[in-house]
């Protein structure tokens, strides 16, 4: 791995011997070599000095930037020495690749505390992985600061959106086609004509952002059929597809019998139970989807199914 350190007019090239050391706060790259580490022999910095002897000049930014980041140092997400780690620690801490620790805002840090370092904006964070945390100051919205964790409920919504849930296609006898008329007093059968993961569930999808992930599972609890005559029929499943051989029998699990003729708008509403969990939280999202059709019921002299 290579590193370039800008140093005033001097060009400093470094061969990094230790992955995981850190660059400046603006560097998300966790692979660098600090002067302190180099002094301990933990990494190597090769300096090409222009020989002006001043050494001072502009301080530059003194920031290490990595060239080729290979091996364990590569990859996105939250990593410690290149090894993926959870981006959240379950207690509100957010992983910082540049600090190699979990950061938690310290709201009650004294205003005259040394960590502020003379700053009057930004915030103080506890930085911890193992053992006691140390404190760091981070500017408001700085690149070096911890990205705000996504709202898990938002991620859950995103996961639900990816499910492409849809209302059921209505299966019903008498059919909802012109000329078809159901007979008063004979059973009406209702069923879900397109049962599947997207209409009844169960279906599970995940959504991720900033290294966080939320998983959601959706399943229909019930299908409520509004029959148009003031009756609501609650069916727990998809219902049974009618076949001619069934004759005038009632549906075993999802049916109705009209007592008056007329045109009825039948609406099937699926009530979903969507449970999500992630980022140490969980919740439910209510959802219902509806579709309607119109059937005609008539007296006995009218042709029936």
């Amino acid at each position: 791995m290579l590193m370039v350190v800008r140093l005033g007019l001097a060009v400093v090239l470094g061969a990094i011997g230790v992955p995981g050391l850190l660059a400046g706060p603006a560097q998300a790259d966790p692979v660098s070599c600090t002067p302190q580490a180099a002094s301990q022999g933990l990494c190597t910095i090769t300096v090409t000095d222009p020989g002006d002897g001043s050494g001072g000049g502009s301080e530059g930014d003194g920031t290490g930037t990595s060239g080729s980041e290979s091996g364990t140092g590569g990859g996105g997400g939250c990593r410690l020495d290149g090894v993926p780690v959870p981006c959240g620690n379950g207690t509100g801490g957010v992983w910082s690749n540049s600090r190699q620790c979990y950061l938690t805002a310290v709201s009650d840090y004294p205003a005259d505390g040394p960590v502020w370092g003379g700053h009057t904006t930004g915030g103080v964070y506890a930085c911890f992985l193992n053992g006691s945390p140390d404190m760091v100051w981070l500017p408001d919205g700085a690149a070096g600061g911890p990205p705000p964790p996504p709202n898990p409920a938002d991620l859950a919504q995103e996961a639900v959106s990816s499910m492409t849930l849809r209302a059921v296609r209505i299966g019903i006898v008498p059919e909802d086609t012109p000329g078809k008329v159901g007979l008063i007093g004979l059973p009406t059968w209702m069923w879900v004509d397109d049962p599947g993961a997207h209409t009844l569930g169960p279906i599970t999808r995940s959504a991720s952002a900033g290294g966080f992930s939320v998983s959601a599972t959706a399943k229909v609890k019930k299908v409520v059929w509004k029959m148009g005559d003031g009756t609501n029929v609650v069916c727990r499943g998809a219902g049974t597809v009618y076949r001619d051989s069934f004759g005038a029998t009632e549906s075993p699990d999802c049916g109705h019998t009209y007592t008056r003729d007329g045109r009825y708008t039948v609406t099937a509403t699926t009530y979903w139970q969507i449970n999500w969990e992630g980022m140490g939280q969980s919740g439910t999202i209510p959802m219902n989807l509806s579709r309607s059709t119109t059937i005609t019921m008539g007296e006995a002299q009218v042709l029936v199914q």
Partner: protein
Amino acid sequence: MRGLVTLAGVALTGLALTGCGGTPVSDTPTSPTATPATSAPSSSAPPSATPTLSKAQKQAKAAQAKVLAYLALFDDLYGDPSRSINELYDVSRGKAQEDSANTIRWARNRGYVGKGGLRVTPLSAKAKGPGKWVVTVCTDRRGAQTVDKNGDPVPAASGASEKLKRQMEVEKAKDNGRLYVITDKVVATSC
């Protein structure tokens, strides 16, 4: 306190000091000697004939003392995981503090501990502007060793120099008037 920084063969009053706008009296490294390790360097060691320092020289001397305290503290924290990294805020701010904290944290996360300490030879201290100085030192790690959680030495990176010439910027904080090391960088791999 391990007293890790060895101030090699030079008393602060013998350093190359220069005032604001001046040029350093000397930028020649003092030859390292087998000076026994001492605690954080002090400016109290009186030479036989104490020269009279100008205000600017005294300020540069104070800046240099801050750098040495900073290096000593780093060694102490690097070698003693029970001590809080927050102590760095006593002597450093900005990138110097951040890099130091990150390095110590990096080591602690892996169970690494420093043994021994850097040998530090002050080279120069120059005023850079109002309330700001540039201090150059030479660090020598031949008396230092990083060990892992089993106590086994962590091999040095291939080609890592034993001596580094480091240049640090010291600034007088506007909020409290104290001196802090704010930048720390390697300017040469020999000294």
